[in-house]
């Protein structure tokens, strides 16, 4: 190796810079809800649906959960399931209710526009009562009569372009055979007045009824943008959610339990690291110090990476992930051990310490590479094919294994080579004893 110092200083500077950047921007690893408390719900569609509909469902769920006002809800699709994670939410029962509810689409005649009135709280928003509700932008407030009809009368609804006038978006609604006469009946009574379409306690639209006879379909026009027209069609078509979701698993973690798990994980990791470091130093002496330092470098890089992933990708560190990291201490240390034992072998074989440290690395790294590759293969497979905690574990194990390769190459190799040069005449400092049987043929 020509310039061990360059590599060594390079990786130490890079690690320090990464850590400084992390601390300067005040980021820290984002904690999963099992470490800080919160709710995680896995939902499965009651009947098979295509991806598009599942994505729409997620959009609707997202806007509902956003209304809770918690920091970072995470709603994702994994395979055919929807996973809702709401870390740090205090009212966990309410969060579950909001996600799980199948709200009903209601048609309520508008009594008047009442800007000054307090909106009706959700628990008093009943079918048979008069209510005050806001519109989607929260600008207008309507006083509404009891609901006359529900979303059951709608057979389908679609956004259409140019049917009511040039370059205009409108929504075409078709009623069911049973729904059509009910609709006409209502229309005849309130013709000329507004009818509010209400979902989740929000007035989605309040068109004016222009005629008494619709004959099975209605057109809602206005100054809709394409987006608005499509949203309204979606609301009319699916009511609350495009598909009924069934809770598969619920994990509710109280803040106390989360904190306990976090401190247990930290304590276990710290004690484990300390024990490993002491053992390595006792056995390998100065090489043990290198091994401990390379754990520190790997740790620093991992911390920066996790913080950055938490910030940029919303990746949260869970207890399973933390376990993956604790397990990877073993992998990282093993790389050091494979190398050191190889150096010892070469010294016993008659090489000088200096040439052993360089020659052994090629051999040891080839072994490390093969073994790490098998680990990565496993981690990748687990990540792609499993769900939930197993996935988190696989991800962090994989990341730590990759870092092990980086640290072995850029830190362990130059550090040991430099150490070997400096300790030329004192091999015992590296825990290497001269062979006693060297003379016997």
């Amino acid at each position, binding site marked *: 190796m020509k310039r061990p110092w360059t590599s060594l200083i390079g990786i130490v500077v890079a690690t320090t810079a990464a850590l400084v950047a992390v601390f300067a921007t005040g980021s820290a690893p984002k904690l999963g809800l099992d470490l800080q408390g919160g709710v995680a719900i896995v939902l499965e569609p009651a009947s098979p649906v295509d991806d598009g509909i599942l994505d729409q469902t997620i959009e609707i769920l997202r806007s509902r959960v956003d209304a809770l006002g918690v920091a970072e809800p995470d709603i994702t699709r994994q395979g055919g399931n929807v996973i809702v994670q709401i870390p740090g939410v205090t009212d966990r029962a309410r969060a579950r209710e909001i996600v799980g509810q199948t709200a009903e689409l209601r048609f309520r005649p508008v009594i008047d526009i009442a800007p000054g009135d307090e909106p009706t709280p959700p628990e008093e928003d009943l079918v048979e009562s008069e209510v005050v509700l806001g519109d989607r932008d929260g600008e207008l407030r309507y006083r509404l009569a009891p609901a006359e009809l529900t979303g059951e009368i709608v057979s389908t609804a679609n956004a259409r372009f140019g049917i009511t006038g040039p370059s205009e978006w409108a929504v075409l609604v078709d009623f069911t055979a049973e729904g059509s006469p009910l609709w006409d009946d209502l229309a005849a009574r309130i013709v000329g007045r507004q009818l509010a379409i209400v979902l989740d306690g929000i007035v989605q639209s309040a068109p004016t009824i222009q005629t008494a006879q619709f004959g099975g379909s209605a057109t809602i026009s206005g100054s809709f943008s394409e987006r608005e027209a499509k949203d309204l069609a979606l609301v009319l078509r699916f009511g609350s959610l495009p598909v009924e979701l069934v809770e598969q698993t619920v994990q509710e973690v109280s803040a106390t339990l989360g904190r306990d798990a976090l401190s247990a994980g930290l304590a276990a990791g710290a004690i484990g690291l300390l024990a490993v470091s002491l*053992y390595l130093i006792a056995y390998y002496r100065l090489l043990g110090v290198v091994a401990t330092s390379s754990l520190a470098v790997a740790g620093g890089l991992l911390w920066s990476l996790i913080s950055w992933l938490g910030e940029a990708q919303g990746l949260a560190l869970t207890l399973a992930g933390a376990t993956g990291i604790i397990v990877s201490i073993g992998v990282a240390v093993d790389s050091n051990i494979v190398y050191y034992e190889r150096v010892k072998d070469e010294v016993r074989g008659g090489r000088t310490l200096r040439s052993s440290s360089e020659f052994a690395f090629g051999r040891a790294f*080839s072994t490390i590479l093969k073994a790490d590759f098998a680990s990565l293969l496993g981690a990748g497979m687990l990540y792609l094919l499993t769900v939930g905690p197993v996935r988190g574990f696989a991800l962090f194990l994989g990341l730590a294994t990759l870092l092990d390769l980086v640290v072995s190459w850029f830190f362990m190799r130059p550090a040991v080579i430099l150490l070997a040069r400096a300790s030329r005449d004192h091999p015992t400092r590296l825990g290497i004893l001269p062979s006693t049987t060297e003379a016997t043929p």
Partner: protein
Amino acid sequence: MSVLRQLYRGENDFDIVGKFKIGVSLSALLVLISIASLFGRGLNLGIDFEGGSAFTITGDAGISVADTRDALRPIGLESSKIQVLGGDTLRVQVKDVPDAEREAEIRQTLADHVGTDVTEVSLTSVGPSWGDEITSKAQRALVFFLILVMIYIALRFEPRMAAAAFVAMVHDVIVSVGFYSVFQIEVTPATVIAFLTILGYSLYDTIVVFDRVNENALLLAASGRATYSDMVNLSMNEVMMRSINTSITSLLPVTSMLVVGSFVLGAATLEEFAIALMVGLVAGTYSSIFTAAPVLVALKQRQPRHAERASRTTRSTDDDEIVATVRRDDVTATIKARPRRKRRR
């Protein structure tokens, strides 16, 4: 010279291959016990696989299972599974997923019993079909993992080594699952993760041994006197100190997880991980020596050129000495003279 001193100086020359019979017999016995237990007693599956709900609450030290059972009697849950973790954390498992009203009732009862607020109650509930889904996904991941790794070893090393590594991994899975069955320890998702980690470890260890065997195999061709099993014996002696040190440094963090998780802070997940990892680590280290290596030797001895060499060289202590000496002179010379050529395959 003591055994430890020999190891430290790298002068160990144990007849490991000679102990294969005992090792393989023990492996076979463990596998048989495991399979018998799996069919006889089955596994103690947690709610994540069977469906159900687990309520967890942390209170003061001195909570007892008996008191909790009494407190749960009025709401008809006295036969639930009740555990105390780390001295102050209570976990109650019920077999079904209660509706909202029932759930609130259970929460309130537990909170009153422990004397904390109802929001301190944590809950995990799992629908009955979910367990099947994660089980089938984990199984699929396992099968793909095994196939890919076998292909990798077959290409990077050779097919016989892939077969030997496969046998070792299957051994580890059966023995670890068997351990859970014999002692009826609850199987949770954490356990599944740990099992998968075990496979990684076992494989890692086996690859390190095989890598050295492969390297020495080239020297075998050069010296022409040692048998394949001599060479495997030599390789295992060479990597022994690594195996011991790696096992110790891997077990240290896991032990710390077990002690902190179960005795000091009562973090159930950590404890579950740690037990499975511990069992697996021991099985993995054992199997790379007493399962993977014997299978490899058995497969290799059937190859004509190795079989012939084995019959020519009768094993005796004298022969061992000679082989080792041949290696020392020959090998170091080879490495010194042609360091590049030796790396070529």
